């Protein structure tokens, strides 16, 4: 379901390929988009509604919340599995509507799964898993990765599936664990190249569920952890990871757990302000170095 007014992400081609019974425009009403998707799901279809940009999920908040708890509300007699695709995050410039991240909201919504891939290959595997799963998923597509050289990958094939809750180890290292996801993965990987063999880089890929075991195992090995995310600092998903580490890996910690995130501000429109606000390769490298030297 989509609105043809927007053609920036190359979806209209699907209408041509599969016809307008399967791929069609909706009215410009987010509550209606999700509400209709719930009806279709209850009727046995697997709807893939699209919310044009992250902020516009807000008018659909009630439908989304109720979808997540449908199994619980109906004693598991009804469910409305669907895959809600939402682009968000900074792109060439920021703004408070299209560019916000706030992915942690979906982690907090009971009953939803949340995928936030960092590249096209993972997106394929995760999307296929979401489409085959019997639970609802928010599929958060980062705007900056939709046409990004680093994120562009070869098509991994029709059988490629990545189960949720399995982090990807991008780099192996002994001295510092860096946990990240989404558009920060590329920046962290580039920053980590300055510290050969020292940094273990984990791309969580999904935040709900998240690969707690992989993070714990890595931090128990390195004793140090840096969490990098684009979402704002306060109560961002990094806080959840830090709290789990403090509880379950306390006696293995050799340094304070550190978060590097956007400050608690709206995503700035001015490109220079945006660059100053979003963790950059430089600021990530600086945080890595600081933690390595502590």
């Amino acid at each position, binding site marked *: 379901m989509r609105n043809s007014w927007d053609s920036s992400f190359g979806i209209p081609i699907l209408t041509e390929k599969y016809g307008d019974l399967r791929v069609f425009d909706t009215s410009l009403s987010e509550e209606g988009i999700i509400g209709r998707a719930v009806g279709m799901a209850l009727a046995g279809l697997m709807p893939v509604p699209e919310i044009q940009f992250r902020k516009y999920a807000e008018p659909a908040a009630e439908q989304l919340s109720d979808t997540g708890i449908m199994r619980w509300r109906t004693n598991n007699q009804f469910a409305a599995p669907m895959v809600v695709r939402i682009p968000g995050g900074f792109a060439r410039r920021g703004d408070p509507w299209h560019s916000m991240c706030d992915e942690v909201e979906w982690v907090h919504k009971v009953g939803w799964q949340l995928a936030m891939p960092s590249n096209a290959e993972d997106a394929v595997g995760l999307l296929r898993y979401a489409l085959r799963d019997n639970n609802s998923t928010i599929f958060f597509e980062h705007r900056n990765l939709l046409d990004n050289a680093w994120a562009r990958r070869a098509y991994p094939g029709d059988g490629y599936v990545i189960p949720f809750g399995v982090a990807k180890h991008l780099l192996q290292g002994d001295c510092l664990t860096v946990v990240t996801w989404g558009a920060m993965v590329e920046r962290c990987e580039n920053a980590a190249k300055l510290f050969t063999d020292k940094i273990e880089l984990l791309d969580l890929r999904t935040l709900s569920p998240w690969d707690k075991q992989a993070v714990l195992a890595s931090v128990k090995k390195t004793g140090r952890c840096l969490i990098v995310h684009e979402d704002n600092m306060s109560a961002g998903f990094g806080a959840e990871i830090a709290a789990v580490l403090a509880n379950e890996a306390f006696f293995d910690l*050799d340094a304070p757990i550190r978060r590097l995130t956007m400050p608690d501000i709206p995503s700035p429109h001015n490109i220079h302000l945006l660059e100053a606000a979003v963790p950059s390769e430089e600021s990530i490298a600086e945080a890595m170095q600081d933690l390595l*030297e*502590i």
Partner: protein
Amino acid sequence: MKNNLPTMIDITLAEDQIEGTVAKLSQWLVQPGAAVAAGDPVVELETDKVAMEVCAPEAGRLETILKQPGDDIEPAMVLGRLVQLGGSLLPEQEQEKEQEQRPESAPSANPATQSDDAITLVGPAVRRLMRDHDLDISLICGTGRGGRVTRTDVMTYLEKRNAGDTQGTRTSGDLVGKRIAHTAMRQSIARYMSESLLHTSPHVTSVFELDMSNIIEHRRWHKKEFSEQGVKLTFTAYFLVACVQAIRAVPQVNARFHQDALELFEQINIGVGTALGDQGLVVPVVKDIQSKSLFEIAEKLQQQTEKARTGKLKPADMQNGTFTISNHGVSGSLLAAPIIINQPQLAILGVGKLQKRVVVCDVDGRDTMVIKPMCYVSLTIDHRALDAFQTNQFLTVLVDTMENWGN
């Protein structure tokens, strides 16, 4: 740009503080950037036998550290510099760093690790390793910021230690032990002992028996009177007095051997070996006892042993001894030989355990077995300077003084 050059104050070691001994810098007690008041201890040195502190000559902020832990320290060396408070004084690099960090949005570096003494910051992982392996953190070299001991430092230390064990395996069959690094005190004891016994003095030990009845009786009568004045009357105090008598009779014992001459001393300064458990042994010296009464000697002795046990001895408290007493009997030994001479002295008195023994005495012209509190006293001498003649004369006078105390 700085207009006013701030006044720098050197932190140095006073000429007389470590007279004749080797000092090593053990640790800085404050870190660069920290403010100190005049007289505050800023750096700790370890000499052969004591840990000592060097204090700030004036109030200021510690600006530069010039000597690192482990460095050998000589008098007049500049160990570091203070800057008088008021002058702006971060090194330029750090100022730059601060400016870089300020506009950064991320609430960056952890304040705890930028504090002044990271050596005291022991993280959970390190703390657990220390406990699991029963380690002493002071033996581990910290490579973290501000000297913090990191988990990697502990792992490296353990690896090295294990590697050391592997070497041990090669030389000692299947034996694998736990290595405990020597303290400066242990190293100097080792050096002095082998030097004295194997390279300097041919040792000979003579042993006499001593009846302590009179001393015990005298002490019983005077203990309370001394203690009312805050002084503990110990048997050692009596031995010090008796040594003065014996030295007066045999002044060659209170002397120093030179290739061409024997140098006799008027002054009698007697060191008393004081055990510090596993840490080792120190020898605080009671000085000028030739002119002191039993009370004064007991009082001075008490002060010195107290200092030794609380680690407050200064190098001066252990210098210029002319003779030494070893109370090896305190921990149960009847006789120890040879007791190694405390160089450059010429003799050392050993006092064995006080024990009731049956001795044969002449009672009314008949040999009779009598129970008496006895102990062995020994004198180990440097045979280069002394012979049995002086040795036995010394012990004769000593025993005579003790046995006839109060007569």
